[in-house]
């Protein structure tokens, strides 16, 4: 019986191994270029976090108003979400004016970056502003100029420019913070808290732990719901005035929906 040809069997696999080796080298090379760290990179994504229910309860938002106010309002928002921008422009100022500044409510902002181009970076930038006590100033500017930075290839530079316009803010220190990974974990934890509470889109509001669903379209509708949830806080106070008629061409102060998680 003739011996089976062993050598040809092996050599028939040689081209295969060569091709496989080339793919291996090319793949490793491509991955290596992607891994190259960039100096001063502004981190724009979260880190995986797994928090226990107890840890979730300790996740910090950024609050304004009396700590012992009878009403606590949580807002989960994304600085790049258009509906959050509308909410911040039309309803939130009235909440702060009528409920927060009157001592009825404490307002707590939680980051819930949805995944727009700069969602996470903007959330981190908000925390960087907060470390200088300028969160709410930054919050107002960032929402008002959403269209300016949302499509900017270097949003961090835009945020630094905004910081320069905020009195008393150290823009250099702020930019250094934004161009780092600082607060990556805090924002990720805030996001996880939102997910654990069933936040699926932004803005999402909770009043004394109750989710407002659907989100009220006007301030008066919002206050009506708040009065139902916490009537004691309004004892003796007159009801909210009806919303002013909308001016032509604007949304009438209505927040027309929520941005869903992409």
């Amino acid at each position: 019986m003739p011996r089976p040809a062993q050598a040809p069997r092996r050599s028939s696999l040689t081209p295969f191994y060569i091709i496989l080796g080339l793919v291996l080298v090319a793949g490793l090379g491509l991955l290596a270029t992607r891994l190259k760290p960039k100096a001063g990179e502004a981190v724009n994504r979260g880190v995986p976090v797994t928090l226990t229910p107890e840890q979730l309860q300790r996740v910090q938002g950024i609050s304004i108003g009396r700590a012992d106010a009878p009403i606590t309002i949580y807002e989960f928002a994304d600085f790049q979400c258009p509906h959050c921008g509308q909410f911040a422009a039309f309803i939130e100022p009235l909440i702060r004016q009528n409920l927060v500044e009157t001592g009825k409510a404490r307002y707590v902002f939680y980051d819930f970056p949805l995944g727009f181009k700069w969602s996470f970076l903007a959330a981190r930038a908000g925390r960087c502003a907060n470390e200088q006590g300028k969160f709410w100033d930054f919050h107002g500017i960032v929402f008002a100029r959403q269209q300016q930075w949302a499509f900017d290839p270097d949003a961090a530079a835009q945020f630094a420019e905004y910081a320069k316009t905020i009195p008393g803010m150290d823009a250099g220190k702020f930019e250094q913070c934004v161009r780092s990974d600082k607060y990556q974990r805090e924002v990720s934890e805030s996001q996880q808290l939102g997910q654990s509470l069933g936040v699926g889109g932004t803005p999402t509001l909770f009043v004394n732990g109750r989710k407002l669903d659907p989100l009220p379209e006007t301030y008066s509708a919002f206050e009506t719901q708040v009065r139902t949830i916490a009537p004691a806080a309004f004892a003796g106070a007159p009801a909210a005035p009806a919303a002013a008629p909308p001016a032509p061409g604007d949304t009438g102060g209505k927040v027309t929906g929520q941005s869903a998680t992409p």
Partner: protein
Amino acid sequence: MSAVLDEAEVDGVEEAYAPPPTSRMAIAVLALIGVFDAAYLSMYKLGIINGLTCTVGSCEQVQNSPQSALFGIPVSVLGLGAYVALLALALVGVQPRFAADRRIAQAITAISGIGVLFSAYLTYVEARVIYMWCQYCVISAILITLIFLLSLPGLKRARAADS
């Protein structure tokens, strides 16, 4: 190996050593490409890299969507596991003595078949739920479909060998 071949020769079972099937070699190459594709997405999802270079679509938004994880495990990590398994099976399966092995053929078809179904679901999610595309997910869907199709001749060959 030489000793094994010699034994086979003595036993007169050379027929068991089928020539290495080209389709299985192609599966190995495609699976290796899949390993890199899934590894890249996994590194992003696990926080090893901070961004994805994406020339087509919105890779990061897709990777940050709720559908990018299954039971808390990133889909890209599941894909990485599947491609590593397919690569290992294909590398063993190209060896002449395993070319007609029924279990290897079935395992490749089963894993890639599940992969095709899951990729179809993910493609549906991209098209109809989140309305965004990730080029690496599309590449993976194409790779796993090709692997599945290429696995079918091996399955037939194994059945023929059995019968």
